[in-house]
């Protein structure tokens, strides 16, 4: 015990901070979500109402809309960033002239905030068409592909697919870096051995490289998925607090600051947490076990 006690003492400040600020506050939030504290006056703590807020919110049309948006956004963003990131890594995998230059260009959006890039993307995805078109719609006009012009994020049905484009632009370089590390992690001897066994280049990919990329793909999925479910800055930067682009995170902001309804805000926040927990916790447990084996 004399050996490990000092260590435990040294990390205890962090343990306390994490216990209070992560687990304590998450619990507090859930507790608040289970009360009827629907206004901000401090004297009214609110009564315990169980899961009522969690069920009644589904009769709220705007909530349903924000969930639908979140799903569309997640599918397009996660799919888009995975495919584009993989493709870029695949193109560079065997080494290419000026590789570090390419990597730098694909990765730089990661270094910049969504708030800053949102300014230009809001302009690029301006919904005006015809003579007044700016942004991408104008570019399509120049290129003679006017039929591609659309409402972008203002499109009622698929606007959130447009909202995912800046997110793909921002994150696919990162996914590229992950996949590139994965590709380069496949030992050359393994590929050579497969070639000796008569595999064509495609066969080598199919049977040697792709299976070895599975852990990287899983990591990438988890990272993209949890970013997607809590997306906030991007939506605020591109469209502000418009119902047409509501996602749970922006709707929560509205519930807290515009409707002054803490219980509702906490309920939305709880749903965001739960949606992430569902797949992050199994992943962390899997990762911890894997770490122990190696």
């Amino acid at each position, binding site marked *: 015990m004399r050996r490990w006690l000092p260590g435990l003492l040294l990390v205890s400040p962090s343990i306390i901070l994490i216990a209070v600020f992560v*687990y304590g506050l998450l619990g507090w939030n859930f507790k608040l979500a289970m009360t009827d504290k629907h206004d901000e006056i401090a004297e009214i703590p609110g009564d315990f109402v169980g899961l009522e807020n969690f069920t009644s919110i589904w009769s709220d049309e705007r909530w349903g809309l924000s969930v639908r948006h979140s799903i569309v956004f997640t599918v397009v963003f996660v799919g888009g960033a995975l495919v584009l990131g993989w493709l870029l890594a695949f193109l560079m995998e065997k080494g290419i002239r000026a590789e570090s230059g390419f990597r730098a260009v694909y990765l730089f959006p990661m270094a910049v905030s969504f708030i800053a*890039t949102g300014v230009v993307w809001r302009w690029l995805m301006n919904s005006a068409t015809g003579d007044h078109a700016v942004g991408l719609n104008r570019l399509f006009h120049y290129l003679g592909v006017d039929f591609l012009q659309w409402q972008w994020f203002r499109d009622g049905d698929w606007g959130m697919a447009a909202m995912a484009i800046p997110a793909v632009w921002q994150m696919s370089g990162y996914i590229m870096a992950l996949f590139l590390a994965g590709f380069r992690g496949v030992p050359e001897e393994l590929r050579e051995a497969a070639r000796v066994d008569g595999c064509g280049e495609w066969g080598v990919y199919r049977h040697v490289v792709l299976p070895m990329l599975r852990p990287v793909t899983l990591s990438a999925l988890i990272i993209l998925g949890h970013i997607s479910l809590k997306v906030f*800055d991007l939506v605020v930067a591109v469209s502000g607090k418009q119902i047409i682009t509501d996602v749970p995170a922006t709707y929560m902001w509205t519930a807290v600051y515009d409707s002054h309804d803490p219980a509702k805000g906490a309920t939305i926040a709880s749903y965001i947490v739960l949606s992430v927990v569902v797949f992050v916790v199994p992943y962390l447990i899997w990762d911890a076990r894997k770490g122990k084996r190696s």
Partner: protein
Amino acid sequence: MTAHVAEKAPRTAPAPVRERGRTAAWVRLVLLLLFVLVFLIPVYVLLVTSFKPLSEADPAQAWNLPKVWTTEAWSVAWEKLEPGIVNSFLLAIPGSLISAALGSLNGYVLSKWRFPGADVLFTLFLFGMFIPYQGVMIPLVQLMVDVGDALGVQLYGGIPGLVLAHVVYGIPICTLIFRNYYVTIPDELIEASRVDGAGMLRTLWSIVLPVSGPAFAVVIIWQFTSMWNDFLFAVFLTGPSSWPTTVMLNNIAGAVTTPYSQQMAAAILASIPTMVIYVLLGRFFMRGLMAGALKG
């Protein structure tokens, strides 16, 4: 390693394959260049528009270079954004330094001075890296108000509170980066120091810290960048006098009356610090990114 892989394949391959390999390399290069163009479109738009005078803010010239170049939009944007930039530095410099110090202590203990249950604790820490901060936001505001009142300091609404939030929620990633770095220090070194009678802190000070430079660089750059770019904490926890760059930029750009040229100049100004870091110290920035992918 890159060069090695690139050269090896053609040398061992038979002639026809080499021909084909060369064509494939060209196709790859062209595709990659095409993607570079696509990736840089927003940069072109930002730069070009920020140098345009108001008279050229016309849809018909949306994609053209400015006929008259002017830095007028830049000076207006700077005037509006400056207080936010100052606040962001006041937030990100102390914040990233404190984060690094805490991460170093935790990483050291969790890799070299382990106690029973250290692995479980580490996983519990890591979960904090993934939680959506929305899930703690409402109680965090309340807690800061209460604690601030009890201590007689202003935590909520000011920069110290924002620093506190970033430091606390940065513990997981900082601990992870330092732990993964310290694992590479040979245990024999720690043992030898122990045999010589050095305690935990002494070993940290004279054996571990002297070789920690790269890990500190990664963590400081990573934390600086995420504090600089954060919007969620800032919008929930600060008031107008302590708004960092992102909140100010969002207010400037969100106003219908702000001309495009000023919005875009402001967006570039807001991105300069992190871009400088990325260009000069991209290597460390990358390592922070890869640490975020856990063992990926």
